[in-house]
């Protein structure tokens, strides 16, 4: 979501370790390897994730490699999902099963047959479904090692972190208050572990006085 335009919502990661010295040569291959593919290119799949151009969500070929914006790497992570309404799947399955029963004069269909019918129906409906696209910006400052990711949902962020690690072979660690407190203390030349001494403030007794 809108790190480079519009209203921005994002979380922060600190990347553990540094990119390889020849990252300008190696990263383009990795980014292409994990580039986004539309669901039309992936028959039978209901979900597709991958990198796209941060300024153009329909560009996943990266011919000009303009994700290198020194000192940043800027990409968007696109997530396309096709959803088949459960009741629609059920209805089409019933109709398909009925058709098979009539054609074969059978009163009962074994589970493997029903599973096969269900999969056929699912694939047919998937072709008709229009995917929903989510596009989340990612800006990685290679000088500071900080990654900004344009989403805050825990599940999505976890999936993003794993995708990032798979692409760049570096682990992004989420930043949160305790980690920021440790950083602040280290920046003040103090022991980061002092952050553990900060105890919760209780305001409840205020109302009881």
């Amino acid at each position, binding site marked *: 979501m809108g790190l480079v335009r519009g209203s921005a919502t994002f979380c922060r990661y600190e990347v553990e370790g540094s990119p390889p010295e020849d990252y300008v040569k190696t990263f383009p291959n990795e980014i292409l390897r994990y580039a986004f593919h539309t669901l039309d290119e992936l028959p039978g799949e209901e979900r597709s994730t991958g990198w796209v151009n941060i300024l153009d969500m329909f560009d996943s070929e990266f011919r000009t490699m303009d994700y290198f914006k020194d000192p940043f790497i800027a990409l968007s992570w696109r997530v396309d999902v096709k959803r088949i309404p459960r009741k629609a799947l059920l209805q089409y399955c019933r109709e398909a099963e009925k058709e098979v029963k009539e054609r074969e004069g059978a009163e009962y269909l074994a589970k493997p047959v029903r599973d096969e019918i269900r999969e056929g129906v699912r694939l047919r409906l998937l072709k008709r479904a229009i995917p929903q696209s989510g596009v989340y910006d990612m800006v990685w400052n290679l000088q500071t090692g900080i990654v900004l990711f344009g989403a805050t949902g825990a599940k999505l962020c976890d999936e993003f972190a794993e995708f990032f690690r798979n692409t760049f072979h570096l682990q992004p660690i989420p930043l949160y208050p*305790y980690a920021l407190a440790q950083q602040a203390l280290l920046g*003040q030349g103090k022991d980061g572990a002092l952050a553990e001494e900060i105890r919760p403030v209780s305001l409840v007794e205020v109302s009881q006085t």
Partner: protein
Amino acid sequence: MSVLDEVRESESLGRDFLVWLWFRSETMEGPFRLQDGEEAELWFEGKVTLQSEGDRGGETIVCTGENGRIREARFALGEGKKLTRARMHLRAGDNEWAFELDSTWMNVHALKTPGVFREAGDDPDALFYERVFLVEKLLFLMDQIFAQYVEARLSPVWEAAELPRLMNWVRDGIN
């Protein structure tokens, strides 16, 4: 300990920081003094979210808009509700940012940066750099303010002066 466990264990740190920010923004006599002589003014405006944990699960209170409602939020604070998210403005020099900060991860939500002026034919990279500069600048300033909070919490002045003043401020919200 996993990151998630650490986040759960230390979630009071973000909550108490938000309360302190609110208290400082309403009571401080001057702006935050930051590195290199920079100053930043911060104020709460628009929306404050509090939560409580009870036998019947959590209750969320969202106060938006006018000062009266925000005063209700301060009252809820004294009743033991936890401040979990707040919308605030930060002004430094000619730049002003508006955003929500959550207490658990200190993630930024619905950030409006100072305007990035765009003209037809502008280099898209120039716009990218300007925008990212403004986002990073906000984080740089907020990290410094958070560092001041951490320093204050570990200082003897906290128990002796800052905490009593904060308690008085909450009490003023109740009365």
